[in-house]
């Protein structure tokens, strides 16, 4: 059972209390963008075997969105952080670098 800590309300709960909301740090493409950009935004999801950054909602708690850094193989949660950011904060990057040397996820490393 995966345990997550909501950075918005500080509550630590198991996974049934939360709801995953897909890939984090998406750049949205809509009207006016190229077909490839729109296609990639809609369908070409990151599906890594290892470190993954994704959106979660504290569905049965405060109801707010946040971002989790997680391992898709071991289900280890490296940390959670506020959703109001365009890249993972330095302390999360440091934790990832310490635990998974050479990690990379999309443009972040």
């Amino acid at each position: 059972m995966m345990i997550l800590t909501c950075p918005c309300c500080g509550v630590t709960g198991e996974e049934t209390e939360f709801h995953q909301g897909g890939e984090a740090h998406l750049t949205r493409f809509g009207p006016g963008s190229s077909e490839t950009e729109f296609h990639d935004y809609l369908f070409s999801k990151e599906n890594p075997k290892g470190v993954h950054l994704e959106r979660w909602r504290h569905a049965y708690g405060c109801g707010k969105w946040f971002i989790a850094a997680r391992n898709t193989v071991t289900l280890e949660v490296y940390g959670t952080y506020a959703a109001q950011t365009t890249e993972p904060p330095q302390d999360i990057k440091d934790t990832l670098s310490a635990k998974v040397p050479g990690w990379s996820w999309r443009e972040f490393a």
Partner: protein
Amino acid sequence: MKRYSAFAVARQALNHHMGWERAWASPEPKKKYDAIIIGAGGHGLATAYYLGKNHGLKNVAILEKGWLGGGNTGRNTTIIRSNYLQDASAALYEKSRSLYETLSQDLNYNIMFSPRGVIMLAQTQHEVRGYERTAHANALQGVKTEFISPARVKELCPIINLDGPRYPVLGGLWQARGGTARHDAVAWGFARACSDMGMDVIQQCEVTGIRAENGKVAGVTTNRGDIDCDKLGIVVAGHSGHLADMAGFRLPIESVSLQALVSEPIKPCMDVVVMANTVHGYMSQSDKGEMVIGGGTDGYNNYTQRGSFHHIEETVRALVETFPMVSRLKMLRQWGGIVDVTGDRSPILSKTPLDGCFINCGWGTGGFKATPGSGWGFAELMAKGYSPLTAEFGLDRFHEGRFIDESVAAGVAH
């Protein structure tokens, strides 16, 4: 290859069954093949088999990271049906179901296909309408299904509780020619037939890179050396994204764990497959007597082959209200398989941006039933560059917005 038959069993009985030969060879990889298939699961082996049988392409290797049929082929709940809504899917799944009917004879290997019938329960008004629509669509597609009454459901499956605490049974979509097969035997039978045609089934051979020259596939790098090929088929289910990365393109796929469980063996109590999609549980009885139970998918990407614990409770709760006798059963085993899910819940059988490289993936929660049909169509695509069976399932459909939106495949109930 010596044929299996009643006479062979009698002959072997005379010399204490010491004369059975190995079902397939374990060769060393050659330097070059006409075609390489990555992944010796059901779909990969079926592709190789039909490449040889239908298209005369026999200089083929099937590379497997682990052991033969050790992925989702050996982890599914073995249900075979073709009651899909969209024409393209019905054609592909019905081709597959019809191939299953004679597969034991074709392969000279008993895959234990049991067309015992599949009921998909309708437990809400929406489901009633949805399944009536599917039954009508199936009639037009030439797939034999019918919408049946609750009384008929009870007649077909006496252990069912029609008046469940949450959702009463309002009817069901019945496909009499659906059923189950022995999943391992499907992989083993195809592997034996491939080996017999002179193909190399190479286990414990992990592909670590895909080599390309001038935009065309040149070969693969493996833990057992470089192997060259003219054509490459990637058939690796949950790990498709990983392999696509090596080939330099991306897939509209996310991987999740789907779980299943089996009970202790009991006397025969149910001779049909029942799927209850609203409460979410499905069950059939294996020949050994175990109740084979399909569970839920995780709500987040992962590669754990285990699945979240709380899904067991949800699945068992659904089954206890649908089949009250299940409450007295002990569960023996629980496991998960990594399923590759696309946005429209339909598979991808396609050319790729890399010339000569083809991909067969995205079967999500329902690939086993499609094993022979997928192999048939994908082999044609690899051999000729086009197959009417797979034409609609190209990667370009996501660009064009031409989805094969499968409502019956939208849940995990497969």
